[in-house]
């Protein structure tokens, strides 16, 4: 599964995209797994109220299932327009 980071999440974690082989069942499980990896992930995901997620390029909730998913993206609230 590809995991993408945008804006300050990308900067804090230090990369825009990585391939992760995970058995996480939901987005929340994936976040827990990432938090346990390294301090920079723990810092990026410290406050989930400031983080939004897209699953296969559609906005999703943290309890969204990951089975069969190819791409998960994490980013702050959007500021377009």
């Amino acid at each position, binding site marked *: 599964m590809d995991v*993408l980071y*945008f*804006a*300050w999440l*990308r900067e804090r974690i230090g990369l825009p995209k990585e391939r992760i082989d995970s058995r996480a069942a939901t987005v929340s499980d994936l976040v827990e797994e990432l938090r346990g990896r390294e301090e920079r992930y723990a810092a990026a995901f410290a406050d989930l109220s400031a983080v939004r997620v*897209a699953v296969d*390029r*559609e*906005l999703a909730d943290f309890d969204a299932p990951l089975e069969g998913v190819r791409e998960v*993206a994490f*980013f*702050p*609230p*959007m*500021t*377009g*327009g």
Partner: protein
Amino acid sequence: MRIVVQEAAFDFGAECDAFAADRADMGAVVTFAGVVRGDGGLDAMEIEHYPGMTEAALAAIAEEARTRWSLGDVLVIHRYGRLAPGERIMMVATAAPHRADAFTAAEYLMDYLKSRAPFWKKEHRADGTAWVAARDADEDALSRW
């Protein structure tokens, strides 16, 4: 319906002109242009987006507008990359038989585009950079629809 996501500048006047042309069935055309404000010594506004998701998200917002109001056409153009104060970031345009639909749909597009399309703005100033925080008011604006 036309959705454009590009780094290059767009020609707002030419887009407005083309969008409003040959609309004998549409009494009302509304356009909106977003401009980079040079508040507080802003040097540049950098816009990041999510290639692959952005155009789909914008198209979904525009399609939703077309199901809600009687619209003849919708145009959305949004830039990314580094923009200087005064540059036009984006535009939307709506054509409808009646003005209320054209106005309301354009405001709907803007409200959703602000908070539901994957763009992020970063301000560059002499003393550093800062990501623009999402405003509660923008999120609250969605509750009216």
